[in-house]
């Protein structure tokens, strides 16, 4: 038996295994704040967080407004790349939208700042009862929550004509009533709205023709429109009897005006 030859092989294998195991041990020690490097344990720390930002947010009709908060995170062991900030928007006690998670901040040492964008949807109700609750966390610990409040979501106005923005009543004669033509309106902002519906007098393409009385055009009014409500408005045109409008094409404009309730 060639002991010398085997012992050399065993020695080579042992050295190779040791070399493989060494980086794993180092990674395990460095990657964990609670682990050990050279036999010394680092303490597990709890980060702290504060935040600043604007106390008012303006609504983007039919869109999203972003309120930007600057969160300052402090961690005694250093704000490592693994630290992150979680933020949740509330209206009173009601959480709105998904939590916002920011995983990268700027800064060195024990303090870093994180830029946190909080989305406000157009259909969140206007008011001053909004707040954002933020926490910072490292792999072991999460900070005490920090509440940024109050935030006032400022009321806006907005209406869109989703369908039926051009209507045709067909061909009508004196005494005729048209079929109902429908327009669909949408409250596109963060508050309820009243609608004022008014029509200009019909005008004709026939020179010298008398206009058809505007009062012949009638509609319902779905006011007040609630936030995000889509509502139909039915228009009916009736040509009064006893008038003799010139034959021709008549046209008008109908204004749907939204105002605060």
């Amino acid at each position, binding site marked *: 038996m060639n002991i010398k030859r085997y012992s050399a092989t065993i020695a080579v294998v042992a050295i190779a295994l040791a070399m493989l195991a060494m980086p794993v041990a180092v990674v395990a020690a460095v990657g964990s704040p609670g682990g050990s490097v050279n036999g010394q344990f680092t303490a597990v720390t709890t980060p702290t967080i504060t935040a600043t930002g604007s106390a008012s947010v303006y609504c*983007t009709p039919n869109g999203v407004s972003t309120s930007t908060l600057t969160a300052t995170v402090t961690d005694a062991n250093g704000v490592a790349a693994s630290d992150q900030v979680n933020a949740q928007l509330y209206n009173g006690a009601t959480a709105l939208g998904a939590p916002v998670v920011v995983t990268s901040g700027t800064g060195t040492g024990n303090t870093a700042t994180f830029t946190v964008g909080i989305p406000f949807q157009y259909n969140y109700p206007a008011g001053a009862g909004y707040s954002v609750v933020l926490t910072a966390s490292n792999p072991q610990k999460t900070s005490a929550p920090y509440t940024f409040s109050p935030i006032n979501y400022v009321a806006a106005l907005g209406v869109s004509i*989703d369908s039926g923005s*051009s209507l045709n009543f067909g061909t009508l004669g004196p005494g005729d009533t048209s079929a109902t033509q429908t327009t669909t309106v949408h409250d596109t902002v963060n508050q309820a709205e009243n609608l004022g519906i008014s029509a200009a007098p019909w005008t004709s393409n026939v020179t010298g023709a008398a206009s058809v009385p505007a009062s012949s055009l009638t509609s319902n009014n779905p006011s007040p429109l609630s936030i995000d409500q889509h509502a139909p408005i039915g228009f009916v045109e009736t040509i009064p009897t006893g008038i003799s409008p010139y034959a021709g094409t008549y046209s008008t404009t109908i204004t749907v005006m939204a105002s605060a309730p």
Partner: protein
Amino acid sequence: MIKLSKREIGGLLKPLLLLLLTAAVVLAVTAPANAVGVGASPSVVNLGTIGRGGSATQDFRIYNTDNSTPLNYTVAVRGANAVSVTPSSGAINPLTNTTITVQVNVNNSAKDGNYSGLLVVNSTASGRTGQAVILPALAVTVKYAVNGTAPIPQSTTNIPIVPLVGAVVLVVVIAAVYIGIRRLR
């Protein structure tokens, strides 16, 4: 193998053509009309408290909430003679907004109190035809209060500090020389 006569082929094509024509008519009827939408933020423009003879400005934004149609708008002031807007008309591309500046100039005879009016934002039909065109509009509230008289701006005169110091030094030197001469006598 099935063989069809010309008559049979014609009989088959006829309903097919009718089906195609019907589909075309349905598409034409259900094609969406141009949507149009307008928004304003905030819904109340508060110019604050102004003294007689004073002025104030505040901005608000008009939004085109439609994703395809440009919005032509006008802004008119109702019920508040001291208020003006800039610009009072323009065009806004889809899904964008523009800033309107509201200004109030309170004249010297205005009485103390709260004032309000409306900023009427009208849209115009852009590229839409029909017997009746529907136009979205908004009534934005504008308000301000008048209290007292605006402070008169103080006119300030800048006195050049170097010539002033030089003049003082000169006076002191002259006085010292004068006193010195008198003592020598």
